[in-house]
């Protein structure tokens, strides 16, 4: 069996089938771009016959670990599936547990959660655009997107005190109130980003080289997208009007949320949806800041038992927890939590037997659903189209592997 050597790739000849010479190629022995995984590509000449994504390199048994931990300690565990999108990944879990506990977060907390979710979404899309850019050897887009992502990480760290793993929504509310500087800093970030998006259009989206690489590549029709279970911007780029935010969780129900929907379903359209969603998120944060209700940021149920010695922190916009928070007991039951992350819909299915730890926590992440797209979209394309397809579906292995 002959070995085939290409820069950065190893393949072997599988012999011929039906008169075609088929080569098996390993792309990215461990880390092709966005995380640890491998694509095994079967090629007939330059044409892709099949793609087998080899996943599981970063499987951390998150679901099983959750069964051995108290509810509050699970928040920072599930956060580790997608640290670059931390509020979006934890919020549906927190809301699911809240339903079992029977606590309602105050309106101000719901708005603050929405603000951080949208800041995270912008950062996540910029991350995806940057990786998508370097896939096409467009290092300008890579550097720009990662540099501009820093702006939104800065905003998040002003609000939460942490750059990436915020652990911000907790049962009953959020952990910090909006700091004074946030509105002013966001105003600047918005003006800056809107101007940058025009530049992104020029340097990337309308760049004839990028158009040539992305247009008409990896086309997914609306019917196909639904049948494959694609989610997030990938689904909406095919013209399906669905976004978990339409269910109106957090404060989305009050902010006249409208999803960004594309039509063509090709790689360029998926990039377009992400670019327009950044704009839409800036607008949503703006609306949430203007409509931000006054009041507490944590449910009274928990704040009333905070020890008197540390109560003064609540007035300074910092949460203090009562001792009972570690050993919260939920009522027995089953709940479904869902929310829209940067990459698509995340679902938590939580079963409680009435104890301090979940009986079972099933998690389906957006990347876990989008992994099927590698094979479905790449078949029939040339090998050079594979990076374009990978970049456009914004696949994130740690999130898929859990």
């Amino acid at each position: 069996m002959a070995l085939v050597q290409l820069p950065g790739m190893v393949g072997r000849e599988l012999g011929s089938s039906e008169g075609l010479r088929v080569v098996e190629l390993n792309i990215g022995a461990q880390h092709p771009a966005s995380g640890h995984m491998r694509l095994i590509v079967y090629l007939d000449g330059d044409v892709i016959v099949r793609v087998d994504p080899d996943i599981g390199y970063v499987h951390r048994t998150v679901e099983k670990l959750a069964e051995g931990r108290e509810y509050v300690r699970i928040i920072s565990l599930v956060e580790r599936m997608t640290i670059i999108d931390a509020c979006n990944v934890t919020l549906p879990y927190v809301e699911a547990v809240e339903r079992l506990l029977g606590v309602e977060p105050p309106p101000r907390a719901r708005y603050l959660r929405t603000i951080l979710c949208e800041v995270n979404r912008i950062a996540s899309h910029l991350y995806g655009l940057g990786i998508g850019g370097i896939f096409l050897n467009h290092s300008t887009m890579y550097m720009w997107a990662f540099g501009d992502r820093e702006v939104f990480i800065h905003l998040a760290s002003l609000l939460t005190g942490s750059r990436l793993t915020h652990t911000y929504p907790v049962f009953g509310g959020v952990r910090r109130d909006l700091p004074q500087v946030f509105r002013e800093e966001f105003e600047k970030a918005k003006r800056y980003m809107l101007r940058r998006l025009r530049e992104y259009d020029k340097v990337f989206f309308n760049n004839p080289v990028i158009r040539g690489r992305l247009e008409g590549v990896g086309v997914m029709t609306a019917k196909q997208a639904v049948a494959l279970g694609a989610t997030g911007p990938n689904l909406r780029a095919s013209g399906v009007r669905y976004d978990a935010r339409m269910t109106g969780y957090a404060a989305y129900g009050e902010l006249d949320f409208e999803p960004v929907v594309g039509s063509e379903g090709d790689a360029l359209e998926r990039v377009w949806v992400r670019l327009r969603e950044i704009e839409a998120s800036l607008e949503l944060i703006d609306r949430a800041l203007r409509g931000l209700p006054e009041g507490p940021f944590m449910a009274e149920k928990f704040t009333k038992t905070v020890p008197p010695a540390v109560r003064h922190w609540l007035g300074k916009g910092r949460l203090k927890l009562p001792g009972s928070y570690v050993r919260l007991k939920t009522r027995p039951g089953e709940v479904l939590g869902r929310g829209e992350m940067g990459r698509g819909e995340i679902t938590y299915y939580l079963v409680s037997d009435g104890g301090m730890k979940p009986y079972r926590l099933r998690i389906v992440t957006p990347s876990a659903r989008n992994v099927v797209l590698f094979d479905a979209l790449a078949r029939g394309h040339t090998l050079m189209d594979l990076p374009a397809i990978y970049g456009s579906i914004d696949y994130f292995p740690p999130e898929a592997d859990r």
Partner: protein
Amino acid sequence: MLERSVDRRRGGHRSRPNVVKAHLDAIATAAKRLLEPPITLPYPDYMEARPPGYRGVILFHYEKCIGCSLCAQICPARAIKMYRVPGDKRLRPGYNVGRCIFCGLCVDICPVDALSESLVHDKVYEDVPSMDMDPVDWALWSRRVMDEERSPEKPLLRARLDPERGIVYEEAQPASSGGEG
């Protein structure tokens, strides 16, 4: 086999820019950026001044602790363990900074402000065992971290946003996390 099913003339919201103009636009936009200063922090010659409320390494104030062990119970990373200290009737927390994920939940649940978050994040340790501190070590180490906050080894730069340039770094004065609560 390579049928492309998209009709290239479609694409409602996608304008079809003139190819020559689009190339020139892309080059001009990227070239303009060349004239602007770099956006990176010149680390480690400078350190970043963390914003107020930043969640750095955790500081322990021994004299305030009542030994309730709530911090050890809530810690998601099991970075805090309770220790028996000679000459002390109560259990006291020790801290493994190598395990800590800086979530700050221990600070949130401590009923007496015996724990606080510092503004120091980047620390270097000579070996793994020196990251695992017993209560007395942790309290002494916390004092050194507070000194470091007040007089950092490297000059500080603080990030701020600018509507034209995005993130910019400015010279900043050392601030203290107000560790004593």
